C-alpha cells in the first residue's frame, strides 16, 4: 500500500519567494523585531493581506459577544480555568482513559523528546508516507522537518497548510494559515509544481489540491493530527475541521498519531457541548465547523476502517512551569485565532512578522513563556496595548495585562541603560516641584533647538520623528500659566458631596450557575415535525438539503432516487435494514459515488448529523464518496448540540469514533472565499421521515 507522496510531486521545482522570517522552523527572529516589522510593511502583497484581515476582523470580531454566545463564553472561561486548576490530575485521568480505550500515551517534555517518540513509532512501523491535518503543536516541535530528514514523505492536507508546505512557509494565522497569499500567488505556485497551467479561481485551485491529495490519504501509512480538546473522563480526542482532511487522516491510515500540548485537556466529554460551538463561533462566526471528529481509541474488532494503532503524544514544552504563576491563564487558550484577527498591529504587519510559530497577541504572550525565553523576548512590545484581543478572546484571557507584565519581566532580566532614565524620571515626576522643573527645562531646550534638530535627539524622539512632526513641547507649562493668570490665588476646593461611584465590572459567574442556551436562541422545537423543519432550514444554511417525507417507504424511495443507480457504499445501520437490496452496492467506499448512512442523532438547531463508527458502520461511508445521503427518522432528532452531546456521552459502549457533520466539506483558505467539496462530500442530502 505504501509509496511516495503524489501531492508533493514537483515540489522541488518551486522557487521560494518568501522573506527569511516567513520560513518554517524559525527559531528566533533573524533581525531585531523593529527591523523585521518594517520589512513586513514593505512585503509585496501586504496591503492586500491587511485589507483581507480588516474584513475578517469586521466580520468575525466586530459583532462582539451577545447571548447566547456571551453565556457560552462565560461557561468556557470557567471550564478552562477549572482545567488549569488541576491540570496534572486531568492529564492523568486522560492518559488512563486513552490507554483503557486501547491507545498508547506518550508524555514528552520538550520538542526533542516528542520528535523522538514519533520517530520511534514511524521506524517501528516502517512508515514511508505520512498525511497530516493541521496542528500547531507539530509546528511548535518542527515535526515535518524531522520526519523529512528521516526520509519520510510528510504531506500537509489542510488546503492552506498544503499551499504553505509547497511555498516553504510557516502558517501566518492559527486558523487561516495562508491568509497572506492571494489566489494569483497560489495559482503561480501550483503551476510551478504542476509544470503547466492551472485554473485561477479558488474552486479550481482547491480542486487541484484535492485531486493531488486524494491518493495520499488512501495510501498513507500514518496520519498525524492535532487535538482541539481531549476529554479526561472518557479519553476522547476531539478534532475540528471544515475540509474533511482531519477525518481522512484519522480514519484511513493504519496508524494515527495525535499530538497535543498539555493544556488541551478538558475535564468532561460534555464540556464539548460548550467548547466545540464556541471555538467555531470565535474563529469564523459559525455555530459549528463542518466536521468534529471525536476519537475514543483505535478501531475495534469487527470495524472495517480506522487506525489499528492510536498514539497520543502529550507535549509540555514549558507549559506546566506556568501553572500557579501570573501567566497560568494563557493556557486557557483554545486556538481560535480571534485575537489575531482583532489585533490592528497583526493586521498591519501580518503574522509572519512576529517571527515565531504563534503570531499576534497570543503569540506575543505565549512565545516568550514557552521554549527558549530569548527567542520571543521582544514580542510583548509588538503591541499597541489596544485591548481588542481581550474583547475577542472566547475564554477571556487578559492578554493586554500579560503583555504589560511580560514587558516588566523583559526589563528586569537585562541591564537596560533606560532603567536609570526611567528611575530618575519617576522620582522627579513623583514630586510636584520636580515635575514643574522638568516642564520648564523641556520648554527651554525645545525653544533653543532648531526644529530640524529636534527629531535627531537621542531617545524616543528619533522613532517618533520618522514620519510625524515633533510634538510642540514649546507649550510645556502653558496650561499652568493660563490657570494661574486667569484665577490667581485659587485654593483647592473643600471636599463636597460627590456623585455616586461608577459601577465596577460585574463579578464573573460560575459556569454551573449559567443556563446553557440553545445556539440559535430560539425555544426548543414543539414536536418532531417542527424539529424536522428546523433541521431542514439549518441544512440549507450549510448548503446541504433536507427532504421531509411522509412515510418510511417514501423516504427509502427518495434515498434510492438520490443514489440514481450509481455505485453506492452503505453502512450496516438499523435504520437501513433492507435498503442495500435496492441499491447498486460496492464494498469499497473509494469506489463509490454515493455513501448512504443512518445517523445516531441529528441536531435540529444546527443541521448537524452525529454518525458513530462500529462493526459495519465505517468512518469512510460518509466521508470518502463525493456525495452523502443520510436516512433519518424523526425519532433521532434532538433540539440542540447540548442535548446531542449529553446523549452521546451516555452511549455504551462508547463508540471508537463519533463524527459530527454540519453541511458540506468547505475550505476558506484561498482569500477566504468559500469553496466546497474539498476532501469530504460536496453534496449532502438528509432524508427525514416520521418514525
Amino acid at each position, binding site marked *: 500500500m505504501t509509496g511516495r507522496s503524489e501531492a508533493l510531486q514537483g515540489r522541488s521545482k518551486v522557487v521560494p519567494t518568501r522573506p527569511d522570517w516567513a520560513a518554517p522552523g524559525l527559531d528566533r527572529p533573524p533581525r531585531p523585531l523593529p527591523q523585521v516589522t518594517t520589512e513586513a510593511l514593505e512585503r509585496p502583497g501586504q496591503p492586500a493581506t491587511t485589507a483581507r484581515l480588516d474584513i475578517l476582523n469586521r466580520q468575525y470580531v466586530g459583532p462582539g459577544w451577545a447571548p447566547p454566545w456571551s453565556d457560552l463564553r462565560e461557561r468556557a472561561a470557567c471550564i478552562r*480555568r477549572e482545567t488549569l486548576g488541576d491540570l496534572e490530575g486531568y492529564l492523568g485521568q486522560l492518559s488512563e482513559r486513552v490507554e483503557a480505550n486501547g491507545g498508547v500515551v506518550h508524555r514528552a517534555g520538550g520538542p526533542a523528546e516528542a520528535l523522538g517518540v514519533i520517530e520511534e513509532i514511524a521506524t517501528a512501523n516502517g512508515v514511508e508516507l505520512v498525511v497530516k491535518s493541521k496542528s500547531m503543536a507539530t509546528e511548535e516541535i518542527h515535526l515535518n522537518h524531522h520526519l523529512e530528514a528521516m526520509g519520510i514523505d510528510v504531506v500537509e492536507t489542510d488546503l492552506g497548510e498544503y499551499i504553505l508546505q509547497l511555498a516553504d512557509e510557516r502558517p501566518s494565522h492559527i486558523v487561516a494559515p495562508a491568509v497572506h497569499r492571494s489566489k494569483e500567488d497560489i495559482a503561480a505556485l501550483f503551476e510551478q509544481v504542476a509544470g503547466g497551467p492551472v485554473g485561477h479561481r479558488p474552486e479550481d485551485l482547491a480542486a487541484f489540491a484535492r485531486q493531488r491529495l486524494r491518493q495520499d490519504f488512501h495510501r498513507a501509512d500514518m496520519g498525524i493530527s492535532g487535538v482541539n480538546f481531549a476529554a479526561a473522563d472518557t479519553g476522547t480526542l476531539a478534532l475540528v475541521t471544515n475540509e474533511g482532511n482531519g477525518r481522512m487522516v484519522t480514519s484511513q491510515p493504519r496508524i494515527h498519531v495525535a499530538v497535543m500540548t498539555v493544556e488541551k485537556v478538558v475535564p468532561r466529554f460534555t464540556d464539548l457541548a460548550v467548547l466545540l460551538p464556541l471555538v467555531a463561533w470565535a474563529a469564523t462566526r459559525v455555530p459549528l465547523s463542518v466536521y468534529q471528529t471525536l476519537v475514543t481509541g483505535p478501531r475495534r474488532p469487527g470495524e472495517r476502517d480506522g487506525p489499528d494503532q492510536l498514539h497520543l503524544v502529550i507535549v509540555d514544552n514549558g507549559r506546566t512551569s506556568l501553572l500557579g504563576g501570573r501567566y497560568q491563564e494563557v493556557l486557557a487558550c483554545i486556538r481560535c485565532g480571534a485575537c489575531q484577527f482583532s489585533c490592528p498591529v497583526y493586521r498591519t504587519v501580518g503574522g509572519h512578522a512576529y517571527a515565531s510559530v504563534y503570531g499576534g497577541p497570543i503569540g506575543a504572550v505565549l512565545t516568550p513563556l514557552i521554549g527558549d525565553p530569548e527567542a520571543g523576548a521582544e514580542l510583548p512590545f509588538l503591541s499597541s*496595548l*489596544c*485591548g481588542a484581543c481581550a474583547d475577542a478572546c472566547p475564554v477571556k484571557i*487578559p492578554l493586554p495585562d500579560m503583555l504589560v507584565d511580560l514587558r516588566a519581566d523583559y526589563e528586569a532580566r537585562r541591564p537596560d541603560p533606560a532603567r536609570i532614565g526611567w528611575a530618575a524620571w519617576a522620582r522627579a*515626576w513623583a514630586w510636584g516641584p520636580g515635575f514643574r522643573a522638568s516642564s520648564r527645562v523641556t520648554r527651554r531646550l525645545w525653544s533653543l533647538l532648531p526644529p530640524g534638530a529636534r527629531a535627531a535627539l537621542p531617545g524616543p524622539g528619533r522613532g517618533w520623528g*520618522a514620519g510625524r512632526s515633533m510634538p510642540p513641547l514649546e507649550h510645556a507649562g502653558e*496650561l499652568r500659566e493660563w490657570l494661574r493668570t486667569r484665577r490667581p490665588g485659587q485654593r483647592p476646593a473643600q471636599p*463636597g458631596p460627590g456623585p455616586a461611584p461608577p459601577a465596577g465590572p460585574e463579578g464573573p459567574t460560575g459556569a454551573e450557575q449559567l443556563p446553557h442556551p440553545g445556539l440559535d436562541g430560539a425555544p426548543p422545537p414543539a414536536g418532531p415535525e417542527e424539529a424536522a423543519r428546523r433541521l431542514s432550514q439549518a441544512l440549507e444554511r450549510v448548503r446541504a438539503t433536507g427532504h421531509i417525507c411522509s412515510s418510511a417507504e417514501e423516504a427509502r424511495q427518495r434515498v434510492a432516487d438520490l443514489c440514481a443507480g450509481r455505485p453506492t457504499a452503505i453502512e450496516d445501520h438499523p435504520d437501513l435494514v433492507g435498503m442495500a437490496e435496492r441499491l447498486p452496492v460496492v464494498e469499497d467506499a473509494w469506489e463509490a459515488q454515493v455513501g448512504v448512512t443512518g445517523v445516531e442523532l441529528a441536531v435540529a438547531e444546527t443541521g448537524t448529523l452525529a454518525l458513530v463508527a462500529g462493526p459495519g458502520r465505517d468512518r469512510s461511508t460518509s466521508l470518502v464518496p463525493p456525495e452523502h445521503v443520510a436516512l433519518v427518522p424523526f425519532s433521532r432528532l434532538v433540539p440542540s448540540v447540548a442535548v446531542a452531546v449529553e446523549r452521546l456521552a451516555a452511549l455504551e459502549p462508547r463508540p471508537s469514533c463519533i463524527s459530527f457533520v454540519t453541511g458540506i466539506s468547505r475550505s476558506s483558505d484561498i482569500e477566504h472565499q468559500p469553496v466546497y467539496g474539498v476532501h469530504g462530500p460536496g453534496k449532502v442530502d438528509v432524508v427525514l421521515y416520521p418514525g
Partner: protein
Amino acid sequence: MATSGPPTSSPTSPAVHPDQAPPGPPASVALFASCIADLAAPGPARAAVEVLEAMGCRVSFPEAQSCCGQPALNSGFPGEGRLLARHWIETFEPFQAVVSPSGSCVAHVHHQFPRILEGPWAARARDMAGRTYEFSQFVAAYGEGLPLALDATVTVHDSCHMWRALGERRSVRSVLGRIEGLRIVEMEDADTCCGFGGTFSAKFPYVSVAMADAKLARGQGAGAQWMVSADPGCLMHLQARAAWKGSPLQARHLAEVVRDALGPGGGR
C-alpha cells in the same frame, strides 16, 4: 490572576450613564490634565476647564499633579509606575471628584492602579477609581443643560483604553449629539487603534505610522472635517502624522469641540 477561579476581565460597562447619575454635578471637581496637556497640548485641558465651569462646577487644579505613570508601566518599569500611581493618589485623594480629558489616563487609574498596587494602596486606588471620571462621561452625566451649537462635520475615533479598559462606549457620541448643527459621520473601524500605543509609537515607528495612515484615511473617507477623540495621546499622534502628510483632516479633542460649541454666550 494565577488562581483557577473565575475569569478576570476588563469592565464592559461605562462608569457613569446619564440615566444613573444623581441630579446635578458635584459643586467642585479636580482637573487631572495629563502630562501631555502639561507638556505639549494645553488646549484640550483649557477647554475642559471652560466647559466644566460653564456647567457650574468649581474646578481645582492640584499643582502637584504630573503623570499617572502609564508610560513607565507599559514600558516594562512597574516600580516607577507604582511610584507615580501612589503620587497620583496622594495628589487627588482630598477631592471628591476628579475629571480628566484623557481617557487613557482615566482607564489606567481604574484598571491598572488596583492591579499594580498592593495592600492599603490598592484599596485607596479602588476608592479613587470610584470618583475619577473621564471628561465626556462627566459631561454626558451632568452637562445636559448646556446650550451647544456648532456647524461642523465630525467623525469619532473611539480611543482604545477608554473603549475597552474603561468600558466607556457611549459618552462621546452622547455629548456630540447634543450639539446643534453638528453632524457625526461614522467611519469604518472607528474603534480600531490609531497606532499610538505610548512608547510603541517610538519603538515600532513605521508600524505605528502605518496604523495612523489607515485611521486618517478612514476619517477622510467618511467625509469628516475633524476626527474627534477624547484622548490626548491618540490626538498628538494623529495630528503629528496628519501635519507631516499635509492631510486636510484635523484631529481634535472633544473638549475643544464642546467649548467651541458653547459660543460667546454659552454656559450658565
